[in-house]
């Protein structure tokens, strides 16, 4: 039965229906978590003893930066699945993820720069992590540019999949750049192995926002994927039926 579910999911027609059913739930859960995260983050969590209230931008900045890496990895995995098993839906997911990932990367850069102005006294420093995030943005833009340059959708998706797989080698370099270059950016405070050096009252809204961002990605990528599926399958019978129904 479980296997059957995945087979159904892989067919564009069923994916379109299942995704359509999932989107309202994901969007609703996302909204609730964003509200809760903002409430705890902006009102409940105490001000930082050094940074005052301006640290609160971290509740957007850090989840956005996490998402920027996460989505790139998702794209590479989807690309590998698409290349190995020729699964159309994996290609659709890869293509639909790229603009969202680019937006999150841009958001992480902008919020980081807004935070950096009062904290470091400058909008931008050529710190390793900032630079890597910028490189990540370029990688996303490369994926989008390559996809739009190739007319045939299937060829474009496969070319982009290879590019994503090549680029994903860069993601670990980004992640470990903190240890490698060890510069101005503060070290990780959540994923330390012993004990997080962040207080629980700040950790809770951060995690709430992180989950909310994941849900946001999930429902937006499903919305985009539904559009992409419709465009790809525009000559299929079920899409025509759908168009005639409405």
């Amino acid at each position, binding site marked *: 039965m479980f296997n059957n579910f995945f087979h159904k999911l892989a067919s564009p027609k069923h994916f379109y229906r299942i995704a359509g059913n999932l989107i309202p739930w994901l969007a609703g859960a996302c909204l609730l978590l964003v509200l809760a995260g903002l409430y705890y983050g902006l009102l409940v969590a105490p001000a930082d003893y050094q940074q005052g209230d301006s640290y609160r931008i971290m509740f957007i900045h850090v989840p956005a930066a996490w998402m920027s890496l996460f989505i790139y990895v998702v794209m590479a995995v989807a690309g590998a699945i698409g290349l190995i098993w020729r699964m159309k839906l994996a290609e659709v997911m890869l293509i639909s993820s790229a603009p969202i990932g680019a937006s999150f990367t841009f958001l992480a850069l902008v919020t980081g720069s807004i935070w950096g102005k009062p904290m470091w006294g400058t909008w931008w420093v050529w710190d390793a992590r900032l630079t890597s995030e910028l490189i990540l943005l370029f990688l996303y833009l490369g994926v989008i540019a*390559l996809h739009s340059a190739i007319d045939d959708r299937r060829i474009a998706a496969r070319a982009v999949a*290879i590019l994503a797989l090549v680029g994903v080698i860069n993601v670990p370099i980004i992640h470990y750049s903190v240890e490698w270059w060890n510069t101005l950016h503060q070290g990780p405070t959540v994923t330390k192995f012993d004990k997080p050096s962040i207080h629980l009252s700040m950790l809770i809204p951060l995690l709430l926002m992180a989950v909310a961002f994941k849900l946001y990605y999930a429902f937006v990528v499903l919305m985009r994927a539904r559009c992409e599926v419709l465009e790809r399958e525009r000559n299929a019978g079920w899409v025509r039926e759908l168009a005639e129904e409405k």
Partner: protein
Amino acid sequence: MSTDSLSRAFTVLIRRDLLLAARRRAEMANPLLFFILVTSLFPLGIGANPNLLQAVAPGIIWVAALLAAMLSLDSVFRSDFEDGTLEQYLMSSHPVSVLVLAKVIAHWLVTGLPLLVISPLLGILLGLPETGIKTLFITLLLGTPVLSLIGSVGVALTVGLRKGGMILSLLVLPLYIPLLIFASSAVDSAAAGLPVTAHLSLIAALLVLALSLSPFATAAALRVSLS
């Protein structure tokens, strides 16, 4: 028998590409001239203060090498794509990744090696100390093959496109950045009299990584581009 013919195909391919390059010497000189020209533009742009020049020399030389390598990339597969030879490679009984590696090696011999040879001269022009020039040479020796190898993936992805040039730079330059960072900081450290073994090891690691993975990616990309 089959490995014998594969190694033969490998060497024949390299010899063919070198011969083709030798018949078109002017084309061969272009990346080199570009490299020298860009490097000599910087002193004119930022002023001839020797201390300043010495401080930025590693970065300038490496950025120029990066751009020169990128500009020359298009020629790896372009002519073979246009006359249909590339399709013959894909249809041959030999693994495409090995043939691709041969083409990349030939390309490096034609475009990377001249940069390497001329680089000490540019180091002297920009006032690098002797230790810095030595390290610059080693980083270019280890690094320029990485440029050709990573670049070949980008070229393979864009070879079928009419306006591949701009996209190629967007695809390839971000992937060059780690190399640029390690290489120019190695030259910096060497000029300051610090040990550079760690930097060189990292660049060598990048070379090994690119050498072992990129031919497969390039072969896959060629298959996609020609499908």
